[in-house]
């Protein structure tokens, strides 16, 4: 604090001092995150000159969007000191379900059914975490087992031909409007604005921060945490369902384990984006940049020709490093 006022007193911009930079990162984590993203883009260009084109940017964004939606589930639940480990199973299930029933019901009905079921899974999560006070980690983990098992049963019931992914999903998940702007942004931008608006400008959003920051104080001031948590996990489930549509369209596959590999990166994206796993701190804009950062990093690592093994190791170390830097800066 004194460092900041000193810097201002001597007439220098506050970000030129170490403590000023710290304050900047603490108050506006989005700035250094965007800096990191810019550096990573620069690194991509240096490694393979000429690779950074509108088309490349489009491919990056297209891959980051489903991840950002899943990471959104983690962001909103982590704000209340929770987590949603069922998003992988739910996203796979919703994509798979639509692909298997779309032939009978038509697209609109199939989407509604998948979203309702995703929401129901979230409802069970929310009741478990909110009413029965089960640790969200356990609750959502158990629900992911239930969803995976049921999806497998359904898979045996329904043998579908081809991938079954509806053409509309392929257009939505994999196509570009023009070079550099993927179609899935048409869905994602309104969705992201809605999440950001809900978190910043509505009573529900305030309650999420309040419950995560101090559950006792929020209870004493009249917040009914079980109601908030129930609604929250329903929303998280439905977001995961939507991400499942995009993922199945992007990969043109419908499988009951499609989104499993996106579960841990979704947590990582939220953490890198500055959301605290202990609740009460975090923004969705940070998470979106976090998802972009992870996508660019994995593209850099694969363009360097590293085998999958090295990529995973570097990926893991980077998560530790970024999280450690955050903790150091924000707690001092």
């Amino acid at each position, binding site marked *: 604090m004194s460092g900041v006022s000193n810097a201002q007193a001597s007439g220098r911009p506050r970000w030129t001092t170490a403590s000023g930079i710290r304050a900047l990162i603490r108050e506006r984590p989005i700035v250094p995150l965007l800096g990191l993203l810019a550096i990573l883009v620069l690194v991509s260009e240096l490694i393979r000159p000429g690779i950074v084109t509108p088309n490349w940017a489009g491919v990056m964004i297209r891959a980051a969007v489903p991840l950002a939606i899943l990471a959104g589930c983690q962001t909103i639940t982590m704000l209340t000191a929770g987590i949603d480990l069922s998003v992988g199973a739910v996203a796979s299930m919703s994509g798979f379900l639509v692909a298997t029933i779309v032939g009978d019901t038509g697209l609109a009905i199939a989407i509604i059914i998948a979203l309702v079921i995703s929401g129901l899974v979230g409802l069970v999560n929310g009741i478990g975490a909110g009413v029965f006070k089960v640790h969200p980690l356990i609750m959502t983990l158990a629900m992911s087992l239930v969803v995976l098992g049921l999806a497998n049963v359904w898979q045996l019931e329904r043998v579908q031909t081809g991938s079954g992914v509806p053409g509309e999903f392929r257009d939505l998940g994999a196509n570009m409007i023009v070079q550099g702007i993927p179609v899935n942004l048409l869905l994602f931008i309104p969705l992201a604005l809605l999440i950001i608006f809900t978190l910043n400008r509505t009573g529900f959003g305030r309650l999420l921060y309040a419950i995560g920051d101090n559950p006792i104080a929020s209870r004493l001031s009249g917040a009914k945490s079980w109601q908030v948590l129930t609604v929250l996990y329903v929303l998280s489930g439905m977001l995961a369902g939507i991400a499942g549509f995009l993922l199945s369209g992007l990969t043109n596959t419908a499988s009951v384990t499609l989104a499993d590999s996106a579960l841990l990166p979704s947590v990582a994206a939220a953490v890198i984006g500055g959301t605290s796993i202990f609740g009460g701190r975090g923004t969705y804009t940070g998470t979106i940049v976090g998802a972009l950062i992870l996508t660019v990093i994995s593209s850099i690592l694969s363009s360097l020709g590293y085998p999958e093994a090295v990529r995973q190791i570097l990926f893991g170390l980077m*998560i*530790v490093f970024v999280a450690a830097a955050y903790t150091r800066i924000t707690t001092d």
Partner: protein
Amino acid sequence: MTAVDTSIAVDRPRSALVHFVRRNVWTLGLVGILVVLLVITKIIQPNYGPPAIQGLAISVLPLAFAAVAQTCAVLSKGIDLSVGSMMAFTSVAAAAMMDNRSESFAILVVVGVLVMGLIIGAVNGALVVFTRVPDIVVTLAMLFVWAGAALLVLQRPGGGSADWLSGLTSGHVFTQWVPKAAVVLLLVIAAVWIPIRRSRLGLSLYAVGSDSLAAFRSGVSVGRTKIFSYMLAGLFSALAGLSLTASTGIGTPVPGPYTLMSVAAVVLGGVSLAGGRGGVFGPVVAVVILSLLRTDMTFLNVNTNLATVAQGVILVGVVMVGSLIQLRRQQ
């Protein structure tokens, strides 16, 4: 004054006793459920006998060790999401080194892999302590690291296992009804766990788990204890990895579903995720119950995928009932 003193003096041993009984009631209850389940199994499948029990013991071995590994981390109020990856890493390391080597060299390999487990566990623990990043985030990241390391050792399933190591888990001891794998499991866990439980380190493990500030103020080195608990988790993950290699004869570089199942087993085994409460034997019994349940469902011609559903439902049910009891008690 004296009245207060006597009431405390009377109260303390009794509450300790109540605490002791309550903790063991859970494990004893699990054993009861297991016995009932075995009887049911025998009824629906009259052929169920020694070979099937031996098969059950072998299939349970890796997950049982993984559950103990998770317990060690959870007791000190941590959680280790990298258990499955550490298993894959140690398993392929063992399989790669034992491939086409002599039986006696394999002894060195086993010792080496166990030391390796301690070291990678120490890395996890040190990162948790020194970076001050939440356990769940660090071990989530290390999940990638150890899985990548496993892929560096072997790119596809391969390697080999020494005959004596595989022999250690198959067959029976004394009578047909006592599978060798179960004896090995209990002996190894008892040999590592009981001395620790009775030592200063074991006590500080529980102390840090229940209240790290109180533990710190009574002179326990919190950081060192946390690292120690992760080293134990690494050691038991290495044992789980070795038993994977022993039972399959090869090493597989892709982590199985062991991490999530180990968390489930820990919760079912009566270990509090809030740390400081529970033991290692409850989770082991829980693992056996979960896999016997799966076997029974196969006997009953129920879709095995429904067994996964059942495991999830049981997990939720047990935890909900547990927290309901706790909520009641608080009121």
